[in-house]
């Protein structure tokens, strides 16, 4: 951790507003992006980000300096997002169980590693929310199946099977995108976030 961040955190612990504002501005885009990964709406992502920031400022004293501050903030954001997810689970259940069947495309095309952020977001958004949540937690944020099971209140085997199915669907979507992109000259000439 760089000295500037250390000083900033010390001032934040003293509840210095200018330091809190500086910390917020430094990590706001990361927190918001993490919140967006776990929800379908920007409004909900704003709510998640807001709650996460309040937790960050309130529990800053618990942060250990030898850890990555960005990682600590991300875990708080993910946990807050999962709390929202579980709260809204009833309303989303029907959407989640609607299985999107993978079409028999050239899955080898999905193995390439040069998708744009926009393509990745599109592919992830196409996953049913249950699959997407498990894929994000396991693949991106590095939680174990045991942790995921506890967070989501499901069985460990459910987490494993959701990851397996989610991965298959993700590859299918990526393959479909690759095939659609083939005729175009250079679809990733202007990558966007």
């Amino acid at each position: 951790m760089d000295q500037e961040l250390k000083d900033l955190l010390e001032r934040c612990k003293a509840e210095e507003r200018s330091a809190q504002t500086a910390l917020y501005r430094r990590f706001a885009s990361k927190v918001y992006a993490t919140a967006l990964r776990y929800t379908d709406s920007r409004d909900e992502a704003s709510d998640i980000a807001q709650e996460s920031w309040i937790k960050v400022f309130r529990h800053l004293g618990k942060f250990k300096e030898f850890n990555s501050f960005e990682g600590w903030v991300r875990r708080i954001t993910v946990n807050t997002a999962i709390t929202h997810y579980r709260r809204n689970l009833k309303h989303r259940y029907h959407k989640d169980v609607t299985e999107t069947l993978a079409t028999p495309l050239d899955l080898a095309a999905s193995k390439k590693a040069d998708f744009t952020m926009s393509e990745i977001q599109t592919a992830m958004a196409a996953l049913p929310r249950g699959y997407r949540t498990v894929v994000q937690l396991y693949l991106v944020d590095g939680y174990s199946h045991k942790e995921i099971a506890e967070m989501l209140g499901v069985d460990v085997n459910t987490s494993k099977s959701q990851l397996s199915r989610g991965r298959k669907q993700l590859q299918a979507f990526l393959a479909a995108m690759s095939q659609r992109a083939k005729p175009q000259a250079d679809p990733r000439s202007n990558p966007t976030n």
Partner: protein
Amino acid sequence: MTFTSNNMPPLDATDAPWTDAEMHIRETLLASEADAPKGLEFQVFEALDASTPASQTSSLLRRGALLVASGVAVAAFFWPTEDVAVNAGSTKEVPVLAVEEPVTTPEPSAEASALHVLDEEAADALQAKGVLTEGEVDGGGGVSTPMEPLDNLEGLPTTELEGGNDGERFPLKSGKAAPATERREATLEVKQ
């Protein structure tokens, strides 16, 4: 940072290995940033400010509750002591009475043996009436025998005996002082 299969989450043996695309997705999403809405900063600090007084209030309430609880604990701690003090206060009057006894009853030593015989007779009479206990009769003492009241401790509540200091015993002595007075009167009758 480029992700490899080494720093990817472990998979079960039955799972397909991570693809390059998945590693790329992980790398891209972890590094992703998105502009937060303009109003979010204001909302965050407004909510933070709004939550702070509440937490301060709750901490004040907690401190108040702690003070009340500690006050109750202190009162509870001293309550039994006050009880004992009340008992001791009530007993303090008795030693005064007990002190009066030797003052008012200085018997001539020459008369002691005669009185002892007479005491025994009187005691027998009283015992027959059930006024004196066997201990009082066999105590061998005259009117001023100190062992007499101690025997009267029998049958008293143990809570008072366990109370602690000797001061607590005084009321027990004085409580049975009346029979000794009666005995003295009987002695005078024999003289006549």
